[in-house]
């Protein structure tokens, strides 16, 4: 099982456009990815779930995935979260 713990860089957190980009990347990876913030964990392919976590700039979140290529997929997803998509 691969995991990454990263800090959100987008100025407005993980909503709107950054959330769309993130969910799109999860969906196209074909893996089941989980996103956790605090004690809440959910399916990272769910845009409504991601938005409803209310993830703000500077929050720490954890990504978890299993399967072939999980390390590479999480690297790519971590990159999206740690890039300021609102810049």
């Amino acid at each position, binding site marked *: 099982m691969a995991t990454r713990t990263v800090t959100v860089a987008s100025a407005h957190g993980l909503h709107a456009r950054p959330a*769309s980009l993130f969910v799109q990347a999860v969906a196209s990876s074909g893996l089941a990815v989980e996103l956790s913030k605090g004690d809440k964990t*959910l399916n990272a392919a769910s*845009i409504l779930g991601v*938005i409803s976590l209310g993830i703000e700039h500077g929050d720490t979140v954890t990504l978890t995935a299993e399967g072939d290529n999980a390390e590479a997929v999480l690297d790519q997803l971590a990159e999206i979260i740690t890039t300021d998509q609102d810049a």
Partner: protein
Amino acid sequence: MPTLTGVGIGRGLAIGEVLRMPDPLPEPSDAASQTTPDAEKVRAAGSLAATAADIRLRGGRAGGAAKDVLEAQAFMAEDPTLKDDVDKRIDAGKTAERAVFEAFAAFRDLLVSMGGYMGERATDLNDVSQRVVAHLQGVAAPGVPTPDHPFILVARDLAPADTALLDLSTVLALITSDGGPTSHTAILAREKSIVAVVGAVGALELSDGQTVIVDATTGAVTVDPSDAERAAAETTLADRAAAKDVPVGPGALADGTPVPLLANLGTVDKLDEAVEKGAEGVGLFRTEFLFLDSEKAPTVADQQAKYSALFAAFPGKKVVVRALDAGADKPLSFLNDEPEENPALGLRGLRALRANEPILRDQLTAIASAAAENEADAWVMAPMVSTVEETRYFTRLAKELGVKTAGVMIEVPAAALLADRILADTDFASIGTNDLTQYTLAADRLLGSVASFQDPWHPAVLRLVGEVGKAGAAAGKPVGICGEAAADPLLAVVLVGLGATSLSMSPAALADVRAELARFTLKQAKQFAELALSANSAVEARLAVIDAATPNKTTPTESEK
């Protein structure tokens, strides 16, 4: 059916067939499903996928910011967590329609309870929910219809999301039963030059396929026109199309008083359009585009090349460049990165530039150097100036760096009230009516809930414009208008009556304003200004001037039934 009357926006004319905006769908009934849960799940999955595909298609067509919003909506329709919830509700005996409706409602309530940005997404969710339910029921999706042929859209009013996506190649005209001349729909119609009549009582009784003539000049909607009426409208349309090919002359009132008509531009790409529409120069060149995509300010040489291309297109003509206007609706991280409670009242405009003087110096240097290599009459102005002291600061700095003509924008009531002293220390003033209205009425122009206050016809705003006009006349210095107000043809006449010496607007509005100015003398313009100033509200001011400007006043009759 009688002729319907509303408020016309602009001067357009259109003939076409009506298409009604579908009514919102009723809530799906909570009756138990008549089929198996598996069958309902297949239906739900099919409609969710079809809706996502449809939304994505519309996003691709719309492009730009709308595309991002619609892409997010498509993911909502495909959301796996939502799908699980729908299936759970179907297992409990609900129909696919009801399960979809309830699952979206549950998420919507969750987001609304979180407030702020998340709460605002509730509208998006409702829209997706309605589209999926419509697909399940096999009825037209709510929202603007998208047939393959041109049509005249009839609606109660339009939501901002609907108006932003209007396909101008198929929507010939808009008729709304609700909403006034300052509604979101009206403002958008004016901006995009859509033929529109708003607030037309009885419009909702029109049916799909009925032919109507929409005349924005008179605000009249002729239903089922006779052959003669149709022919007359077609002749007018042909005449106007022909008139557009005739070279356009300079702006002037009926008595010959010149009123130069200039273009508002935000990029050099629109130059050709402005020249073609007869712009006599540029009254507002926004420079934000040079900076928006960058993390730091572009170099003097980069900027100089862009300004030079602009000046080269207008040899011998006036081109007014506005110094970088960041803040509030257009933040730039390298100018002001501090979050503010109240950005419209914060470190923006000249205030932000002054706090980052090297950026301002570079920009002024680049403009002055570009002006020196070209024949255009280059002017520079500072955004959001509030005090005499700021005026002196900017004018002195601009001159020091080689700018020949430097002025200030009047957007803050304080600056309008002291316009005589401000104009004593600078070369010209240009009134930004959008911000001036926002600050005068204390209503955030980006906030929909107070949009009704954002009306430049308000006598308080006009009185401030009049103060600046008087100060300009006394000092013998030019007073331009470069806000949305200058694009409203009749208001443009009033602004000239208040002392504006030039008007600047989006190139699309030039033809209508030019035609309207030519109808009235300076004496009439001043008389209209007096009427507007003595009104109690924006609505009264507009009505009083429309009344005075309409020859052979005829009251629309209700008795033609």
